[in-house]
């Protein structure tokens, strides 16, 4: 039997906020690894 859940507005809003924050952190990590790679490959670090 499949159970589905209908969240309240407050639950939806906080979930959206957490998703945005996680997205920002992941994007920052991508940028961080990119910059570190450039520095290390360039022999600047």
């Amino acid at each position, binding site marked *: 039997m499949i159970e589905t859940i209908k969240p309240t507005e*407050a*639950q939806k809003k906080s979930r959206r906020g*957490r998703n945005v*924050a996680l997205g920002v952190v992941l994007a920052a990590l991508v940028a961080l690894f990119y910059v*570190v790679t450039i520095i290390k490959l360039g022999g600047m670090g």
Partner: protein
Amino acid sequence: MVTIDNHADLRAEEQVRLSEAGARDFFELLKPRVMSLVVFTAFAGLLLAPGSINPVIGAIAILCIAVGAGASGALNMWYDADIDAVMTRTARRPIPAGRIRPEEALAFGLTLSTFSVAILGLVVNWFAAGLLAFTIFFYAVVYTMWLKRSTPQNIVIGGASGAFPPMIGWACVTGGVSLDSVVLFLIIFLWTPAHFWALALFKMRDYGSVGIPMMPNVAGERATKHQIVAYAVLTAAVAVVPAMTGLVGWGYGLFAAALGAVFIVCSIAVWRMPDGDQKMIAAKRMFAYSVLYLFAIFSALIASHYAELLVGRFGGML
């Protein structure tokens, strides 16, 4: 298919428990105020260390140290949720307030610990990463899980975890430890008891109510005040040592001595407070000054270091 509608007029135990925690609640788990001190002292260690580091790599190092410190704060809040719920100072933290579940905080803390140590190791060096891992372990396990609830020396020994950041910052540049980085460690290590016991004096009922063996509750107010003076004297003395080892100049030494003298005067004012004083004005002043003192000492170290570099570079032209 069964649909559970949380909008429906269900009793709380019939609703499916979905998190209402926002990103801000998770940020609060990182103890941002403690983190600011960690960032500042780690930054000082990084700047004062001999040698150089790429500025971007240096910024990433500071970020990793900050996140690692925050992660240990989250692990501390996970373990201490039971006592945090009782104390007025901590009852509104995300876990006792019910905004974040303990297992979420645990997962958050462990994930951030792993990422901060791994990235510091991969990007900077593994010695600094090892020190960061040890600091997180020391705060979360040695202090929080073991010492805090078992001995009044909890914050004396546990204070080491707050003293490691400048050493980690130093290790990011040099890849090791030296006398100067140990002195930076000692300044914070010796400062912590005087700083924290001033707080414990006017919050002792809180700690007593949850059975935490803080010094004022176990040894009494008088013994705590004796020790506050002793640690203030030791801190003031060690804070002058960087001028003796040659890390910075004697201008800093004089400034640190003056700041230290005020620190000692504050501690003597606490010592002179009558036992059982309800207002604890001197203890509150000591606590406020202790924060200012540490920021001033590390700011002065940085300023003195750069002043000498500038004199060394341009002095010959004058």
